Each structure stands twice: as structure tokens, then as C-alpha cells.
């Protein structure tokens, strides 16, 4: 049976894990990008679940849109990453502190 709280919990926990992955990660930008992808995943998962639960197709349309946005975003992000690596020879998060307040 479809339990509202189980599915919601899964998506929220997935979202929180990805936030922690962004925040606690000190080393690798790739991990941050993956966490970002996980966020999109959790959000679209939540949307699909709710569209079936509420019997409304808009959520699935949104999740499809998010899928495309996430794909383009990750491609652009990886491109930026590649350019950054070409310049700095490192993608360690700790060392990307050139712009200070």
C-alpha cells in the first residue's frame, strides 16, 4: 500500500543527505555536483509520488522538466569544472577561496 509518510520520508531524507553532502564536503567539487543531482532526484521523486497520490499529471510534467533542467545544468556545471581544472589544476573545494569579502 502506498504510505504517504514512507515515500515523503524517503524523498526528504534523500534531500537532507544531499544537503549534508554539499555542506560537509570539503574536498571534491564532483561530490557537490553529485549531491546536487541527488537533490534534483529527491525533488522529482517527490513530485512523481505526489502526482500519483493526488492523481494529477502536472507533477509528472514538472518532473520531466526538472529532468531536462538537471541534465543541462550538470552538463554546464561539468563544463565549468573542466575549464576551472584547466586553469587551476585542482578541483579541491578548500582551495577555491580566491574571492574573499
Amino acid at each position, binding site marked *: 500500500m502506498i504510505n504517504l509518510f514512507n515515500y515523503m520520508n524517503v524523498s526528504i531524507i534523500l534531500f537532507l543527505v544531499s544537503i549534508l553532502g*554539499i*555542506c560537509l564536503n570539503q574536498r571534491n*567539487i564532483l561530490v557537490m555536483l553529485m549531491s546536487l543531482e541527488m537533490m534534483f532526484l529527491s525533488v522529482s521523486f517527490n513530485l512523481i509520488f505526489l502526482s500519483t497520490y493526488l492523481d494529477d499529471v502536472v507533477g509528472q510534467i514538472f518532473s520531466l522538466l526538472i529532468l531536462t533542467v538537471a541534465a543541462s545544468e550538470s552538463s554546464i556545471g561539468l563544463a565549468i569544472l573542466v575549464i576551472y581544472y584547466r586553469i587551476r589544476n585542482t578541483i579541491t*573545494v*578548500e582551495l577555491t*577561496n*580566491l*574571492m*574573499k569579502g
Partner: protein
Amino acid sequence: MYLTILFLPLLGSLISGFGGRWLGCWGSSLYSTSCVLISFFLSLMAFYEVGMCGVCCHITLSTWLESGAFKVNWGFLFDSVTVIMLIVVTSVSSLVHLYSISYMETDPHRPRFMAYLEIFTFFMLVLVTADNLLQMFLGWEGVGLASYLLINFWFTRLPANQSAIKALIVNRIGDFGLTLGILIIFWTFQSIDYSIIFSVAPLFEDFFFSFMGINWHCITLIGLFLFIGAVGKSAQLGLHTWLPDAMEGPTPVSALIHAATMVTAGVFLMIRFSLLLEFSPTILCILLTLGSLTAFFAGMTGIFQNDLKKVIAYSTCSQLGYMIFSCGLSCYEVSLFHLTNHAFFKALLFLSAGSVIHAVNNEQDMRRMGSLVSFLPLTYSLMLIGSLSLAGFPFLTGFYSKDFILELTQISSQKSLNSYYVSFSFWLGNISVFFTSFYSFRLIYLTFLNNSNINRSLVKSIHESSILMVLPLIILAFGSLFFGYLSKDLFIGLGTDFWKGSIFILPTNNFFVEAEWLLVLNKFLPFALTVLGIFLASLINITNVYKYFIFKIYGVTFFFAFLLNKKWFLDILYNRALVVPVLNFGYSTTFKALDRGFIELSGPLGLSIFVSKWSKVVSRLQSGLLTHYVFFIVIGICLLFLVLTYNSLIFNISPNVLLIFLVLTFYV
């Protein structure tokens, strides 16, 4: 004619001051002197009209200020008291002008000097002729200003600057009292016109007003504040310290301001307000006590002064004490009589002292003079006349006024008259007669009669002064010989109708007639003390008994002489207990701790420090690390949700504030 008396000195001052370069030294001197001389002759005519013929003159020019019930006119009142003061001021002033033409001969700033003398005369005339208190206050402040300018005449000298500032500030303390007095007068009488005040004053005899839970007797309070003004201007004990220091100015200035005119303004104020003071026995008692203390104190201090001018300055102070306490005895006309006489012989003394100083090449210390009688016989005889007159030698001018004051104290101190507290001032006054004659003759002996202590190179150049300097002295000498006798009946004659309401004495305070029936033996007491003073001064200066005294009871006399020479340490006491703490308070407390400390820290400086410090702290949050930014974003969103969730529960934050918060969060 009446206004010409006033405006001639003003005109003279303006023209000789601003046109001094054009007129030249001699031109400005002659011009200003002739202005005052004409004004003197005009005031003689005014005296004849007002005093002799009894035509009181009151001129109102225009309105000065008008605001509701408060109306001040430019008004000039010429009654008996005023014309006497006019005579005193203009005569002494014109003689001093005449004298200073020659005395200041070598001074490069003579036009300025003449302009200052003139402006002083003008303000003094404004003071005495005013018909309301505000105009009187104008003159009052004006003479203070002129005194500052004149003491400070040699402005390159540091002591002159210091004493000028001292004179102005100490006078200003009294002026503050006078201002309060004027304010209370307006509060009480709703007017500051003399005519209104004096006509309604008897109705306010039992008028009290409540201030800080105490019911103050209005007239006493007014009298007290006016008296504080008089204390400052007339150098009574307490605010007397400026007068001896004011001797830093040129000698004619001392003669004009600090002997004959300005210091008498306080006494004039008391005489003018006789009608008010009469209704308050308390204030009369204060006048009596402080006046006699001043006479005593200044007389005693004068004994051990070694500066020629300071001796005379202290004698002025002492005589002012006499005038004030005779006001306290309700004998205002005697006080005015003494004022007039005193103006003559004190101007004589000062100008002769100036002549002596001029002759011995600006040496003022009496210990470095002596034997001047053979060089300056004329000055000696003039100064002897002045000193005898000052000491109250019989049938000279001083005798008629001073002895009468003392006789009145004798009368009032009798128990049957129920004012036996006057015996205090009776004794102090009589002792100061002794002091007066003692220091006058000490001055004569040290300057003229003792062995010479003059530098040998100086002896050749000692000479009598020129005719321009001697002529005023001779005129003043005639004044101090005969004026008292000639005008005795006019001023204080039995039942004289000269005053015509310008002086008011309560019938219960009037002891004129009783003074005529004193025991003859009692009347001889002041004379005996005078002779004793002269005798003692001669004894000490002619024989060597003084040295004997010094060696015999060295410690006591030395301490005593030192104490008196240092003016009872009052100056030092004032400096240590009052002036320095006040200055320290001004610098360290109000300036450093309050102005530049607390107020600046809590105001502009503190705010700018706070903002720059905290902006640094806040901008340091922007570390450049991506993870920190993500952390702040998450924290910000959490806070935003927190606020949104509890918004309705806890506080009602407007959406705008939330928006600002959101934007700020994302900008961090």
C-alpha cells in the same frame, strides 16, 4: 544741554579713537580734553539748575525695547544724586585728561588712550543718568569694558593682561548678581523704571515669594543681589581682589577708574536704591557688616604694602567700605558726600603718585624712594594735603564726611536706639581710621621724608612735572582742602532740601539730629585715632624703634607683616580653592571626560567606530569558501522558514522586513 553732557564724551571718544591718525597725538588729546571740559562746565550748569534751583529733569528719547508689560525707554534722569555724580565724574575725568596729556607724552598710542578715557567717561555718565535699570546696566557693563581696555592699555605686558582679565571677570561675578537683581525687580514690580519701582516699593514691604520651599522676602532678595553687584564693582571684601591688581594700568587710569569713578558705581547703586533698601533691615545689616569689614581689612592690608600705588588702592578699598557701611546706616547722603570728597582727594593722591613715579623713572616701590621732598616740594605738599584729607584731619575735606560717618555709627551703636549691633562697625571703622592715617603717613615718610634709597644715577634726572601735570593736581588740592567745608551744608546740613526725594530715608532710621548731640569727648575719638596713627608712623620712621620691635618680637611681627603684605593670603586662597579647581574641572571633567569623552563616544565617534568594526566582522563571513556559502544559504533558508512558521505565533514581522532579511541572507 543735558544730553550734550552725555554725548560730548561719546563724540570725543569716537573721533579721537577712529580719527586718531588724522588728528595726531596732540590733536586728539586736545580734542578729547576739550570735549570733557565742556561737558564738565555743562554739568556745572546742570548742577545749578537741578541742585540749586530744584528743577528735576527727566528726558525720554525713544523706546528701546517693548514687549508686553516690559517696556524700556532711552530715558535720562537728572536729579540731585545724578548731578552730584555728574560733577564728580566729569571734573575728575577732565582733570585726568588734562593730566594724561603730559603724563602719556612719550606713549605712542595716545589717541587710543584718550579714546578709552572718553568712552569710560561716557559709560559712567550713562550709568549715573539712566532712568531705568537696563540702561544703567549698559553703563555698568560699559565701565567694566572700559576698565578692561584701560588696564590692558600696555597690552604687551603680561601682568597688565592678567589683571585686566581678572578685573573683568571678578566684576562679571558681581554683574551676574546685578542681573539677577534686575530680573527679580521685573518679576516683582513688572517694570524696571526707577520711577515705577520707587513709587510702588512701599507697597511691597511685606511681599514674599516662594522659591524652593522657602518664602523669600522680595525686597531683601533684590537688595542682596544688587549688593552683590555693588560688591563686585566697588571692591568690597570678597570680590576686592581685582582692585589692587588693576594698578597695572597707567596711573591716570588708576586715578580715574579705580579711585574716583568706576568703583563708586556700586555705592551709587546703593544710594540710588535707597528707597528699596530702606524697607529691608536685613540688607542694611549686611551692608553695614560687609562695608565695615572691608574698611578694616583694606586698611590693615594697606599698612604693609610696599608699592606706592597699591597702598592708595587699598586705601580706596577701605574708603569704599566706609561709603557702603554708611549706606547700611541709612545715611545715603553722607555716603554720597564721602564719595564726592573721596573722589577729590583720591584723584589727587593717585595723580601725585603718578607724578612721583614719573619723576623717579617709573619706580613704584616705596622702599626705593625717600628724600624726595627736596626734589619735589610741590608734589610733596600736594600729596601731604591729599593724605591729611584722607586721614580725616580736621577742617580738610575728608574730615567732614568721614568723621560724620563715624559719629553716626556712635549714635546708632547706642542701645537705646535698638540697633546696637552697629557697635561692631563702629569699632572696625574707628580702627580703620587709625590704619588710614598710619599708612598715609607711612607713604609720606617712605617716599618723601626718610633717607634716600634712590639710585645715584637717577638723582640727577628727578624733576618736578610739567605745568600740565601740576595744574590738575593743584585744582584737586584746592578741592580736597575746601570742598568739604563749602559743600557740607549742601549735602548733610541739618534739614537740607537739596535731595528732594532722590534719597529716601525711613524716619525710624534717621539719626541725623542725634549725631549733633553726641558727647564732645566721643566726637574726638576719630581725631585722636588719626593723630595716634600719624604719631606712630612718625615714631617708627624717624626713630629706630621699628628695628627694636623687629628684633624683640621678631617671629610675631614678621609673620603678621608677611600675612598682611600678602593680602591675608586671600588671593592665594582664591586661586587654590576656587580658580584652579574650577579650571581643572573645566579641562578634565567637562572638556575631556564629558565633551570629548562621553558625548563623543555615545555620539558620532562611537557610532563610526561601531559601524566600521562590525562591518569588518560581518564582511569576514565572506570567506571565499564555497562550502561556507552553502552553509549560510541553508542556515538562511532554515531561519526564513522558522520565521515564516512562527510569524503568526510570536511576532508579527512585516513582509518587507522578511524580504530584506532574505536578500541580506543571500548576499552574505
